[in-house]
């Protein structure tokens, strides 16, 4: 059985690690809700790298100068799949100008679609959106006399997450409402990079308190100290 005393690898990487995983036209999921729980250092790294024609998937586009907002402003984003753009007027302006495509998804449906993508599920039936524009073009299904919409999985090539604490094995612990979409996206991307405020030795986090198992995380980047 795996020896508990062999060398333990660390997933800690230097901030440039992200560059190896970026390319034009890729789909990126980002954790966060109004920027809270968004890995700002990784967002800055994407800005510096300059990858273009990106599709971003996340709850909202935050504010012009926080969260993923700067990526919207920089013109690197071609498409956003999100539940809300109201706090970032740049997204709205670019959408109306035809510079960014915005697919609006109800927040709970967005969570379930990402979860499906990560959990090997082919889709989920939700009552949310029945009788609204959201239902257009979707398969409907009556279950026990109630109507549901079939919502399909979402996956991405890369997920960028933010966590409070990690161990070297990549186990993550989130703090307060910064958890939000992060644990779901950890399941739903080919490559998962987490920005963390603190890294501790493997074994120092109580296994009961891990919120994202380390096997889902490829690389850890330390958030800049403030």
């Amino acid at each position, binding site marked *: 059985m795996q020896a508990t005393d062999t060398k333990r690898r660390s997933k800690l990487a230097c901030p440039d690690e992200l560059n190896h995983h970026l390319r034009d036209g890729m789909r990126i999921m980002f954790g966060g809700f109004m920027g809270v729980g968004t890995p700002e250092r990784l967002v800055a790294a994407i800005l510096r790298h300059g990858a273009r024609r990106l599709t971003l998937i996340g709850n909202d586009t935050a504010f012009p100068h926080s969260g993923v907002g700067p990526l919207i402003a920089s013109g690197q984003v071609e498409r956003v799949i999100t539940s809300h753009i*109201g706090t970032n007027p740049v997204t709205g302006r670019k959408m109306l100008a035809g510079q960014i495509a915005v697919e609006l998804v*109800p927040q*709970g*449906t967005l969570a379930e679609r990402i979860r499906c993508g990560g959990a090997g599920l082919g889709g989920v039936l939700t009552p*949310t959106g029945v009788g609204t524009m959201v239902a257009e073009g979707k398969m409907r299904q009556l279950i026990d006399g109630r109507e549901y919409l079939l919502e399909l999985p979402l996956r991405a090539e890369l997920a960028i997450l933010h966590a409070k604490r990690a161990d070297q094995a990549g186990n993550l612990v989130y703090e307060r409402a910064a958890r*939000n979409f992060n*644990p*779901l996206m950890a399941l739903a991307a080919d490559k998962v990079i987490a920005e963390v405020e603190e890294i501790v030795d493997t074994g120092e986090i109580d296994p009961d308190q891990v919120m994202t198992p380390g096997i889902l995380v490829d690389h850890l980047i330390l958030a800049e100290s403030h």
Partner: protein
Amino acid sequence: MDAKTRIARRVAQELHDGDVVNLGIGLPTLVAHHLPSNIEVCLQSENGFIGLAPLTGEPEPGLVNAGGQPCGLAPGGAMFDSAMSFALIRGGHVDVTVLGGLQVDQHGNLANWMVPDKMIPGMGGAMDLVTGAKRVIVAMEHCTKDGAPRLLERCTLPLTAAARVSLVVTELAVFSCDRGRFTLEELAPGVDLATLAARTGAGFDLALPAAAHHRNSLRSMC
């Protein structure tokens, strides 16, 4: 007392001790400040927790409400991810959701997430909340800034959810929605029926006297 405060106060009276309540951004948030002192409700915040409370003292990292503003956490609060947050919302574990509205119609339809070609913020969690909460209360000013009625026979804006609104509270009146008609439950002090009818874009029934024992407030206000 301004219109928004009046609305928030009135909505607060609809909440019951022990209710799990989600308050939308804006006007609905004010409801929290007008709860009767003898009830305790648990506020759910769709960004991932129960136990939303006013900020007292220093902001805590990561502790923000669904508008992204620093907030507090009541004892007994619990944090979770967005899938769990909406499992609670969609699964009927939230007793009451209070939201703002652009339009509500007599069929219980609500429109509050976009104005085509003009304002498209997105639905955020509103569609799930209106679909999943046990009781949907819309808290809004009776007319638009231009004086157009927001209570209509049929919404003209894109819907948030169909046939889910239970109660509409404005600064002029309280209406319930049931069987395709508005029912006037209450008139605000100093408002007469003719004024109300003129500012309302749909007909409405009066709460029947026979049902008045359920509607003490109407009896006392009319």
